[in-house]
């Protein structure tokens, strides 16, 4: 029994799965896992973290994978397996470090709005491919959250962008952007390209006014703060971002009126699917560590795994992972096949995937916590590599509106609630 024996719906697996999965696994085992115990103290500087990113994204070239082949990319954005192959990649990185997985995943997040069928925007693809086609790690960020109201902006179904305070005004052929954002992954000076959620009309809930505009981080008027100190996820920097009369070309808007809002709804599905993959990846690593610990350590003179009561806990943890993987890949499949499951930004798909993610996050939080207790005196010890995941995955549970927003979306969809 290995981590590869946990269930996945065989029917959904991408033809690239085996190859890509294996090269990322090699990278993770060689370039990340031996160093990850020191990541926490590297949260500000990324001195240990950066080389691993460079290898993955630039040297191995993965930062180009979503771009169309025409602009030098790998063309994953127009396959029928974009999400499932992403899931596998995210899992493999998440197994080593979920913060690296999110920094990697978020780079593609705003890019889905211009690289993935049916939203391919060749002009922007070309423009930004040149930015990513480099020998340095190149990151993007999706800049959403604002000081007031936390995840109100992700709560798009209810609030429809009404609370967005960051404005974009068209001045000739340029957008002029003003606003203050918090918390985006890959800020704190990391990202080269920002996908900025803003409104063309303050207070409006008309989808035509919702805008997703790309802003290179070097643009005048863009200021990123220093990274926040957090309980975990050192490889994911987050900071304030200020936009002060920032000017970008008018065609830097991702898809235009109404379509930007639609892309953003799809972004929720992508984000939750990605979160699910980070989590199942971390759980795969949990399984490996527990397997070792519980085979070597004893209670009552038997290996822990041979004690029926402890085995029941282990069985539950492994069993949950088996279920979570099936559910996680189902989420990816729903994104890959709108023809079978409905549009990836539809209420139906967004709500279902949010529900899947909430479920997986709850199982992960529960099981990592339980695992630390199984390790007992060693559970909180950095050297056993569980406690770091435990801190990291809690953050995954909380982001993007956390449990409550998932619950409300599920309730709204399944019970046609009108006022939640």
């Amino acid at each position, binding site marked *: 029994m290995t981590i590869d024996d946990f269930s996945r719906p065989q029917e959904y697996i991408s033809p690239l799965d085996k190859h890509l999965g294996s090269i990322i696994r090699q990278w993770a085992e060689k370039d990340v896992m031996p160093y990850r115990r020191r990541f926490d103290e590297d949260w500000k500087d990324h001195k240990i973290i950066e080389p691993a990113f460079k290898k993955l994204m630039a040297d191995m070239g993965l930062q180009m994978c979503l771009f169309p082949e025409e602009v030098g990319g790998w063309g994953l954005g127009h396959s029928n397996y974009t999400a499932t192959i992403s899931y596998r990649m995210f899992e493999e990185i998440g197994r080593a470090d979920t913060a690296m997985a999110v920094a990697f995943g978020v780079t593609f997040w705003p890019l889905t709005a211009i690289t993935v069928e049916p939203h391919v925007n060749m002009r922007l693809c070309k423009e930004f491919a040149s930015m990513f086609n480099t020998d340095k790690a190149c990151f993007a960020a999706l800049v959403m959250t604002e000081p007031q*109201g936390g995840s*109100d902006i992700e709560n798009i179904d209810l609030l429809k962008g009404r609370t967005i305070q960051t404005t974009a005004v068209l001045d000739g052929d340029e957008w002029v952007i003003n606003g203050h954002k918090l918390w985006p992954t890959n800020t704190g000076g990391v990202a080269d390209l920002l996908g900025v959620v803003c409104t063309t009309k303050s207070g409006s809930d008309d989808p035509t006014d919702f805008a997703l505009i790309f802003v290179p981080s070097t643009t005048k008027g863009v200021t990123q703060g220093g990274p926040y*100190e957090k309980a975990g996820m050192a490889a994911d920097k987050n900071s304030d971002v200020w936009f002060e009369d920032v000017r970008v070309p008018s065609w830097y808007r991702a898809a235009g009126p109404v379509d930007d809002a639609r892309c953003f709804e799809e972004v929720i599905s992508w984000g939750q699917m990605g979160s699910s993959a980070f989590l199942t990846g971390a759980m795969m690593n949990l399984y490996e560590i527990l397997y070792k610990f519980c085979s070597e350590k*004893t*209670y009552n*003179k038997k290996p822990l795994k041979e004690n029926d009561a402890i085995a029941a806990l282990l069985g539950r943890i492994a069993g949950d992972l088996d279920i979570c993987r099936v559910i996680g890949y189902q989420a990816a499949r729903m994104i890959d096949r709108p023809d079978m499951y409905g549009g990836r930004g539809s209420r139906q798909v967004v709500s279902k995937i949010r529900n899947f993610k909430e479920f997986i996050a709850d199982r992960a939080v529960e099981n990592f916590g339980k695992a*630390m207790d199984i390790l007992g005196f060693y559970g909180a*010890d*950095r050297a056993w590599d569980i406690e770091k995941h435990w801190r990291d995955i809690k953050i995954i549970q909380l982001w993007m509106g956390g449990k409550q927003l998932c619950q409300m979306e599920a309730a709204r969809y399944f019970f046609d609630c009108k006022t939640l």
Partner: protein
Amino acid sequence: MRTDDLFFYPKELVDEETQALALSIRQWADKEVIANRLKFSENYRQLVENSRKKLVIDIGLQQMIWPEAYGGGFNSYKRSISIVRVLEEISRADPGIGFMYAANLSSYAPMVMKPHVDKELCARFAPIFCGKKLKTGGSLILPGAGDVHDEGGPLFLGRTIQVAAALRGDEWVINGKGLRPFNSGAGAELFCIVCAIMDGKKFKDTPSIIYVPGDLRGVKRGKVFKKTGLNADENADISFDNVRVPKACMVKRDGAVKGVYSWLNLCMGAVCIGSLMNVYEIIKDWVDVRVIKGKGLIKENPLDAAILAEIAEDITVSRLLTYNLANIMTRPKDYGSLEQDQVFTLAEMIGMRVTGSALHAINRTMELMGSAGYATEWNLEKHWRDVKTIQSYLCGIGADVPVKMDIARSFFDCKEI
């Protein structure tokens, strides 16, 4: 209403002197710790030492655990409730500081606690801790995981005892490798060790406690290891290589080991309650001003209010249970002694429940606070890491299974588990 009054506890059972002490600790907490938290993140170790000094030396808690002759007075099962009250207030400031004090107290318990005061041992060790110098305190070395590759010595209720002691003349010779202390391995001046006792070539069935000063030859300390929380306390693995202590350093009572667990569970429960008191303050401040959906306070949303209710409920019930245990420990005539099975089992049960409920409450609080829940700045995530570390430590090995086996033995007469 002050937080400590909002959540029911048996006030009628807490004496005035204790309440006065609790009040001065509260003042210390507010002034020395809570007001300085953002500074702490820059230079935590130094600031913790400073504030600990004010607490245990200036207020006098360090010697308080010892008999009255040494300036103490907490050294009785009759003071269980006072001890809980004091630990609550310390831990509201920093569960790590509370944890140290709680573990220190538990480590001294076998020799200091009435009705089993061991005058000889007290005379030997009290002077170390009853001066004006800040000490790390006593460290516990408890049974835990065994290793498949070792033959393995005897067990304490299924847990492997990793330290062996053999009498050579008038001395115990103590051996054990790569031991993981419960607390304070890096700096402890004294170790309270659960030892398997050699009786000829075999081990005795029941373990005993032996005290070993930390500065003896053969006591080897590993590097301080990084851990999830409780960073006020520096821990490191310990080895004993033919360490010799006088015969008198052994506590002979059979129930002494169980007694340590009773105290430990009580005290760790109290530490968690203290942490929760502060968690309540943090979330109360948050929900009193936080607006969501561009309108309305978060606390007026029924779903968020339901989560707030869960937090309040966890705190209320945990506090009641912890004081219940303390009260039961003060009444050996009604319930049996804290070194006997029934109270020992209850203590484990309540220790598990309270740490579990505390973690549940903090998790829920994080869910309400979103990113502020895990950002260091908001001071919540530290409680979360600290309480989780306590929970795992209390488990020792195999999650709650060893405790469950103890419960099953007690209530269902299981013999082989």
